[in-house]
């Protein structure tokens, strides 16, 4: 069974998965860790980004155009979700954003002319940029990590800029932030848009990696659980936490494959594994592996 670790294709596949999961975790962490709101609508941004990217790419548009368009579409969705909900109390944001996930899921299944509904979109190509084909796994590995690292650096710089500090001040003490003359709502909505934008970028590299999106089991509760586990395990409010969280969660996910169980039970065992980990981490160490003791986690 250990020969799997010398199988280059397997390892490349593993790290390709980790790449977009890191980016999804980092982007969700902006809302959960830095703004301090429970956002259960991130899967919806992921879906919108994926469909936009895929549909444009399959019409033959340039890779970077598609990636950017997917991100912009997700960012607009972030604005649309943020405007009516950001003034609500935190757990109401939870339910409203979960509702958003349901709406996007329902629309993705019903708007069959655009999304092909439950049939999903098969045969998504991997891009060719400046004449170089990124179809082979090792080439795609380079591309997805390049995108993830560049996006990660931008997020890191943003969070450690004065803008990021103000965000943290708002989270810890809204009154203090207000007395400093900061427009709290404006900062929050900016954070929401940026978070959704990078979810859209991650969605692009996800779509071309899997070469298939959609169907009834995609962009829904299991994926939401996966993202929540990444952020909470790594630690809300910690940049490196989301990176570590993504790696650990994917090791758990793949590890189940090597248990001596039937093919049909792999899915439920994976679900049980990260559901248990999520519950345990929330009970024993709600700030996660690397997280700070941020305000959302105290009473």
């Amino acid at each position: 069974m250990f020969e799997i670790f010398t199988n280059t294709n397997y390892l490349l596949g593993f790290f390709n998965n980790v790449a977009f999961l890191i980016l999804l975790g980092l982007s969700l962490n902006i809302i959960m860790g830095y703004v301090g709101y429970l956002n259960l609508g991130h899967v919806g941004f992921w879906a919108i980004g994926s469909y936009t990217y895929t549909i444009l790419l399959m019409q033959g548009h340039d890779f970077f155009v598609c990636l950017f368009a997917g991100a912009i579409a997700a960012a607009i969705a972030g604005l649309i979700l943020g405007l009516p909900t950001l003034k609500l109390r935190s757990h109401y944001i939870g339910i409203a954003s979960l509702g958003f996930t349901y709406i996007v899921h329902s629309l993705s299944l019903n708007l069959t002319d655009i999304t092909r509904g439950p049939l999903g979109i098969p045969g998504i190509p991997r891009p060719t940029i400046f004449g170089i084909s990124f179809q082979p796994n090792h080439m795609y590995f380079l591309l997805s990590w390049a995108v993830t690292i560049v996006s990660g650096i931008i997020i890191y710089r943003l969070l450690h800029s004065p803008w990021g500090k103000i965000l943290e001040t708002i989270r810890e003490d809204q009154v203090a932030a207000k007395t400093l003359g900061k427009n709290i709502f404006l900062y929050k909505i900016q954070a929401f848009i940026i978070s959704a934008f990078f979810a859209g970028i991650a969605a692009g590299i996800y779509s071309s990696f899997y070469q298939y999106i959609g169907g009834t089991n995609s962009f829904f509760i299991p994926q939401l659980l996966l993202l929540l586990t990444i952020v909470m395990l790594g630690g809300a409010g910690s940049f490196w936490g989301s990176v570590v969280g993504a790696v650990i969660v994917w090791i758990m996910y793949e590890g189940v494959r090597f248990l001596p169980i039937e093919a049909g039970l792999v899915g439920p065992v994976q679900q049980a594994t990260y559901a248990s980990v999520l519950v345990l981490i929330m009970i024993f160490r709600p700030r996660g592996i690397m997280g700070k003791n941020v305000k959302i986690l105290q009473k």
Partner: protein
Amino acid sequence: MLEILPQIIWFSLLASAIYALVAIGLSLIFGILEFINFAQGDFAMVGAYLFFGFVIEGGLPWWIGIAMVVIVAALMGVVIERITFKPVRKSPPFIPLVISIGVGALLQAIMIFKFGGSVKSYRTEGSKAEVYKLFGDTLSVTQSQITLMFVTAGLLLGLYLFLKYSKTGTAIRAVADNQDVAAILGVSINKTIGIIFAVGTALAAVAGVMIANEQNLSITMGLSLGVKAFAAVVLGGVGSLPGAIVGAFIIGFSENFIVGLTPIPSSYKDAIVFGLLIIMLFLYPNGLFGAKAEEEARA
């Protein structure tokens, strides 16, 4: 169109009754612990499968089966509360909420291990539904549907009497009003919370059995049920039990009327409900009855 109106109204009533049963449990828990229990729908799913295990597979008479379901579900509710929610009772609502998502996912995985992933039905071969025709053939109702309505009405009435007149019910209302004052008055907070979980889980489980009797069983049946019940609670205003019931009727009627009387296909049900929810949250952040309930609490 008018000739199908009685049938649509009947379907709306059935859906509303089921949402109300799940929503009441949620509302009870929220009223005291102030967190959203996302596993509530999965409690209903577990109830449905327990009945399947006891009666269809185990061959017990149905009335013993239903008693067993109530007992096992109530115990399960208490145990889950003790293990997962009690340790984080002093934490902000964010944390038990995320835990409840994990608990729900874990319950689903466990039920797949136990019963397999395929959809099941209570109906055995050869049994045929009794159908009654009313209003000059414009309305057909079945025996199981009538049972569902009577059981729901009975349970809701019973709960009302229990909360209003029994000693435990008074204790529950006292704890909901003000935990500290109730504790000083000698009410055991732990015991009361345990009872609330037992009652809420048992109600959900009975709802699950009735849905399964009406339709069928599937592992994911609890998902949208729980979230719709929560939408009902939010619409009615959290913490208000009559509000939860009104909310359940709003959701049950709106989804069936919009689908039944307009050309919108039934697969849009979820999108309609959650779109409605987000709009309502935007317009009435405290729900229809919420503001009033809050005033009462303050007074």
